C-alpha cells in the first residue's frame, strides 16, 4: 500500500517540471496558430478580389443600383474588442484567486469573464444578422465568404472557450476547485487568452486596415 502511493507520486513526475496538461494546451495552441494563419492567409489573399459588392471599407452599388455605405462598423466591433480584452484581464484575476484559494475572487472574476464573453458572442451574432439584413449573405461575394468564415471560426472558438469556462465555474461553485487544482482553470484561461490574441490580430487586419 505504501509503495502504491509512492507510485502515485511518480504519476506527477515530468522531465521538464512543466505539468503535462499545461504543456499539452500550449502545444495545442501552437497548432491552432497554423489553423488561424491559414484562414487569415486566405482572407488577405482574396482581399479586394470580389467581383461585386458589398465592400468592407468602401461604398458600393447594390443590385438595385443604390449606393450603400461600407459594410464594416467599427464602433460596434471596438466595443466587442474591449469586452474581450477585459475578459482576459478578469480571467487572470480569477486564476489568481483560484491559486490563492480565495473563493470569492475566483468566482466573482470568473463570472465577469463569462459575462464579457457572452456579450462578445452576442455582439457578433448581432453583427452577422445586421449584415445579412443589409444584403450580405454567406455566398454574396468573396469578401462575405472569407469574412464570415474567419470571424465565424473565431466566434466558434470563443463559444467553446465559454463552454469550458462555464464548466469550470460550475466545478468552482461546487467547491471542487481547490488551489492544487487551479491548473484546471489555468488551461481554460490559456485557451481563452489565445482566443483573445487571435482577435487582437483579426481586429486590425479585418476591420481597421483598408
Amino acid at each position, binding site marked *: 500500500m505504501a509503495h502504491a502511493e509512492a*507510485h502515485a507520486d511518480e504519476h506527477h513526475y515530468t522531465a521538464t517540471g512543466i505539468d503535462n496538461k499545461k504543456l*499539452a494546451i500550449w502545444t495545442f495552441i501552437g497548432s491552432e496558430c497554423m489553423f488561424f494563419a491559414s484562414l487569415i492567409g486566405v482572407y488577405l489573399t482574396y482581399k479586394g478580389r470580389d467581383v461585386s459588392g458589398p465592400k468592407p471599407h468602401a461604398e458600393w452599388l447594390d443590385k438595385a443600383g443604390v449606393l450603400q455605405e461600407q459594410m464594416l462598423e467599427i464602433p460596434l466591433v471596438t466595443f466587442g474588442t474591449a469586452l474581450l480584452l477585459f475578459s482576459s484581464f478578469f480571467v487572470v484575476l480569477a486564476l489568481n484567486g483560484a491559486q490563492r484559494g480565495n473563493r470569492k475572487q475566483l468566482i466573482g472574476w470568473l463570472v465577469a469573464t463569462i459575462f464579457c464573453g457572452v456579450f462578445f458572442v452576442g455582439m457578433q451574432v448581432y453583427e452577422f444578422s445586421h449584415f445579412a439584413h443589409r444584403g450580405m449573405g454567406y*455566398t454574396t461575394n468573396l469578401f462575405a465568404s472569407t469574412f464570415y*468564415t474567419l470571424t465565424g471560426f473565431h466566434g466558434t472558438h470563443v463559444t467553446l472557450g465559454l463552454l469550458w469556462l462555464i464548466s469550470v465555474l460550475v466545478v468552482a461553485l461546487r467547491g471542487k476547485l481547490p488551489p492544487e487544482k487551479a491548473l484546471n482553470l489555468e488551461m481554460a484561461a490559456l485557451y481563452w487568452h489565445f482566443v483573445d490574441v487571435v482577435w487582437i490580430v483579426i481586429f486590425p487586419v479585418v476591420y481597421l486596415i483598408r
Partner: protein
Amino acid sequence: MATTAIDHAPAHTHEHTGLWSWITTVDHKRIGILYGATAFFFFLVGGLEALVIRLQLMGPNKTLVSPDTYNQLFTMHGTTMIFLGVMPLSAMFFNYLIPLQLGARDVAFPRLNAFSYWVFLLGGILINVSWFTGHAPNGGWFGYANLTTKQFSPGPNIDFWTVGLQVLGVASLAAAVNFFVTTVNLRAPGMKMMHMPMFVWMSFITQILLLLSFPIITVALILLMIDRTFGTSFFVPTGGGDPILWQHLFWLFGHPEVYILILPSFGIISEILPVFSRKPLFGYAAMVFSGAFIAFVGFGVWAHHMFATGMGPFADAFFSLATMIIAIPTGVKIFNWIGTIWGGKVDFKTPMLFAIGFIAMFIMGGLSGVMHASPPADLQQTDTYFIVAHFHYVLFGGAIFAISGGAYFWWPKMFGKMLDEGLGKLHFWLMLIAFNLTFFPMHILGLNGMPRRVYTYSAESNFELLNKLETIGALLLGFSFLVFLYNIIKTWRTPQPPVGADPWNAATLEWSIPSPPQHFNYPTLPQVHGRDALWELKARHGGPLPEPQRVAEDAVLMPNPSWKPLVAAIGVTVTLGGFIGGSHLWVHVAGVAILLYGIYAWAFEPAFPEHH
C-alpha cells in the same frame, strides 16, 4: 532497472481479456497493437485496389472496370495507403515504442490516446463506407479544385473524402499533442533529449510536423466542404476564387506530409542498423539535426508540386533551390546509415535485410526526386508514371520496407515469440524483387510519356510489355504479403520457448523488460546516463543481464480503463459525417450531443483507481 520481484497479493480485479477490455483499453501497448492490426487491414484493402488497377492496365484497351470505378480506385488507393496505411502503421510504432524507449509507464494522456485510435478507426470506416454507396471519392488523393468543386463533381464522392480526412485529422492532431508531451515530459530520469533513441527523435519531429501542417489541410478541407455544401466561391473562378489556392494550401500540408510518412521509418532503420552491425549509430547528433533541418526546410518547398501551374520564374527558382537543399541533410542521413554498417559485425537477420533494402530503395527514390526538383525536368515528368515510380520508391521502397523490418524486429517484444526467420527472408527477397519489377519499369514508361492516372492506353503506344511486367510484379508483391501473413499465423499457432527480454542483444530500454512487457512496463522507472542505455548497462554489468522477473500486475497503480473516448470519437465522426451529401442539421446536433456527453463523462470520471 534492476527489477526485483515484489511479493504482493496476486488478487487483481481488472478484466484483462475479452472484447470489452480492448474497447476500454487505455494501455499504449494495446492501442499500438490495435493501430497495427487496423492499419494492416486497410493496407491490404489499399493493396487490393492497386491490384485491380494493375490488372486493368495489364494490356491495352482493357475494360476490367469502368472509367469511373477506375477513378475511384486510384483515389482510394492513394488516400488509403497514405492516411490509413503508412501513417497509422507508423502510429503503431509511436504507440508501442515511444513510452517503452523513453522508460515511461504510458503516454502522457492514455485516454486521449484511445480517443485518437477510435477516431482513426471510425474515419477509416467512414471513407471506405463510400464503396458500398457506389460513390467512393474519385478526385485523386490531392483532390484538386476545381475538379472537386460542386460543378464538376456533384455527387457525394468528394464529401466522403473531405469529411473523412477531417475526421482522420482530428485523430492525428490528438495523437501528436499526446506524443509531443510524452516525449518532452516522460523521459526517464536522467534521459536528456540528446540521449533519446533515434526512433523517438524522428517520431518527435514527426509530431511537430503533424501539429503544424494538419491545421492547414483542415482549413483547406473545410473551405472545399463549404464551397460544396453552401455554394461559396473559395475555389470557384466565377466568384473570384482561384483553384490554385487549393493547390497551395494542399501542398503546404502535402509536402510536410511526405516527411510525416518517412521520418518514422528513418527512425526504425536507425534502431535496426546499430543492433545488427554491433555498433552504435554513426553520427547521432548529425542524424538529429539533419532530421530537424529536413522538417524545417520541408515547410518551404511545397510548390515543387506545382511547377506545371506556371508560377513564374521567381517562385520556380525559389522552390527548386529549396528542394535541392533538402537533398543535403537526406544525404547526410544515408551516409550515416552506411557509416553505421561500415566495419560492423553485420548479422543479416530479416530486420537487417529490410533495413538495408530500405537504404538501397530509398536512394533510388531520392535520386529520382532530385530530378524533378528542377522545373524544366519536372515539366516533362509531372503527371507521368515517372512520378508514380518516384513516390513508390520512397513510400513503398522506403516506408513499407522499414515498417516491415520494424515488425520483424519488435515482434518478439510485442508478442513474446519470434517470427520465422526462413519465411521472413523469403518475404524480404520476394518483396525486393517484386517491388522492383513493379515499379522500376514505371520510370521508363513515364519518360516515354505514359500519363499518370490514365484509364487505359492504345496498342500502338508500346506501353504493353512494361505494363505486363508491372502487373506480374504487383501480383508477386501481393503474394509476398501472403507469406508475411502465413508467417504470422504459423508463429501464432506454433508453441515456442519464451524469447526472453533481449533476443537481439539490443541497445534500447524496451529490451530490458519481459516480452511482452507487463501493463506498467517498468516496475521502477529506469535511471539513464547516456545514449544506448541498455548497451551501456550491459557493458557496466560485464555481459548479458539476468532475465528480468515478472512482478505482480498490481504492483503499480495504472489508469482506469474507459469507454468514454470511444463515445467522444463517435461524436466527432457523426458531427462531421453530417456533411456528407449536404449539411444535415439533425445529424450535426446528434453528433454534438454525443460528443459533449463523451467529453463531460470523460472529464469527470476518475483517471486512476481509488487507493486501496
